[in-house]
C-alpha cells in the first residue's frame, strides 16, 4: 500500500521564530544606560525657543494683551490695505432684458402698419373708364382644348 505523499514538506512552524527569538535576545551594548543618562542631562529640560518669561505678574499680562492687540491691528490693517487697493471692475449698471409677453396675451408681431388716410376732397369729374383687363380670360384661352377633351369621363 502506497503511503500518501505530502503536498508540501512539513516545516516546523517555530523554526523561523527561533531565529527571531535569537535576534530579540541579543544583548544591549555595554554602557548604554550611562550614555542615555548623559544625553538626558545634556538635553535642555524644557524648550526655550517659545518660552514666555516666567517673571513679571501684572506686567506680563499687560504685555500679553498689548501684543495680542498689536497682532490683531496688523492683521486687520493689512487686510484693509489690500481691500482698499483692489477695486472690483465696474460692470454695466443696468441690463436691459428682452420683454417677454405673457403666454395668453396679444402680440403685435404679425401686425401690418397701415398709414392713416386723409379724407380727400370730392372729385368734380368722374374719371374716364378704363378698358377692362382680360388677362384671366386670355390665360384660360391659351390652355389646349384637346386636353380637356381627352380627359376620361368620371364613372
Amino acid at each position, binding site marked *: 500500500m502506497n503511503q500518501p505523499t505530502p503536498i*508540501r*514538506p512539513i*516545516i516546523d*512552524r517555530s*523554526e*523561523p*521564530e527561533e*531565529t*527571531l*527569538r*535569537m*535576534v*530579540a*535576545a*541579543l*544583548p*544591549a*551594548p555595554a554602557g*548604554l*544606560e550611562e*550614555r*542615555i*543618562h548623559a*544625553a*538626558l542631562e545634556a*538635553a535642555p*529640560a524644557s*524648550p526655550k525657543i517659545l518660552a514666555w518669561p516666567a517673571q513679571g505678574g501684572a506686567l506680563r499680562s499687560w504685555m500679553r494683551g498689548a501684543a495680542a492687540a498689536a497682532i490683531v491691528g496688523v492683521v486687520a490693517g493689512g487686510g484693509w490695505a489690500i481691500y482698499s487697493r483692489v477695486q472690483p471692475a465696474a460692470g454695466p449698471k443696468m441690463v436691459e432684458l428682452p420683454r417677454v409677453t405673457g403666454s395668453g396675451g396679444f402680440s403685435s408681431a404679425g401686425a401690418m402698419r397701415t398709414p392713416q388716410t386723409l379724407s380727400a376732397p370730392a372729385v368734380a369729374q368722374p374719371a374716364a373708364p378704363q378698358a377692362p383687363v382680360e388677362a384671366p380670360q386670355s390665360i384660360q384661352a391659351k390652355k389646349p382644348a384637346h386636353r380637356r377633351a381627352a380627359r376620361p369621363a368620371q364613372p
Partner: protein
Amino acid sequence: MEIAPGAVRDQTRQHDQQAALAALVDEYASTLYRVAFSVLRNATDAEDAVQEAFLRVLRHRDTLGEVRDHRVWLIRIVWNIVLDRKRRAKTRPETDDIADLARVLPARGLSAEDRAAAAQHHARVLACVEQLPGKEREVMLLSAFEELSSVEIAGVLGITESSVRSRLFRARNLMADLLNHARGVK
C-alpha cells in the same frame, strides 16, 4: 531672604521626575534597545532610537504619573520611532544587514561548517520576514520577545488581542510558504 514655598515644591517635583526618569532608563533601556535592534538591525541606529525615545519622555515627563504600564508605553514610543526611521532610511540595502546579523547570531558548539550553514539559514529566515506584509511582520517581530504577552503586544500596536492572534497565525502560515518556496528555488 525667604524662598517661596511654590518654588520649593517645583524643585522637589522636578527632582522626583528626574529620579523617576533615571529609574526608567536603568530598568528598560536594554529592552528598548533590543526592540529597536530587531527592526533596524543596526547597533548605532538602535541606540539613537532609544535615546530619542527617552528624550521624548523627558519632554513629557509631567505625564509620567498618568501612565499605567511604563514598559508597554516605552516600547510603544520606541516602536513608533524605529518604524518611522526604517520608513525613511532607504539608503542601506537590507541584504547587508541580514548577512551581518546572521553572522553575529549565537552558534555555540557548532563546527565551522555548521556555523556557516546556520548563518545561511538565519539569513534566509530574516529575508523571508522582510517579505511579510507590514502588519504580520510587526506582530511576528514583537512576538519574538518572550517578555511580551499578546495583551502587551496589542497595547504596543494599538490593536485588539484577537487581532494579534489572527495576524500571528497568518504570519506563521506565510512564513512557512515563503520558506518552502525559498528551499524549492535552491
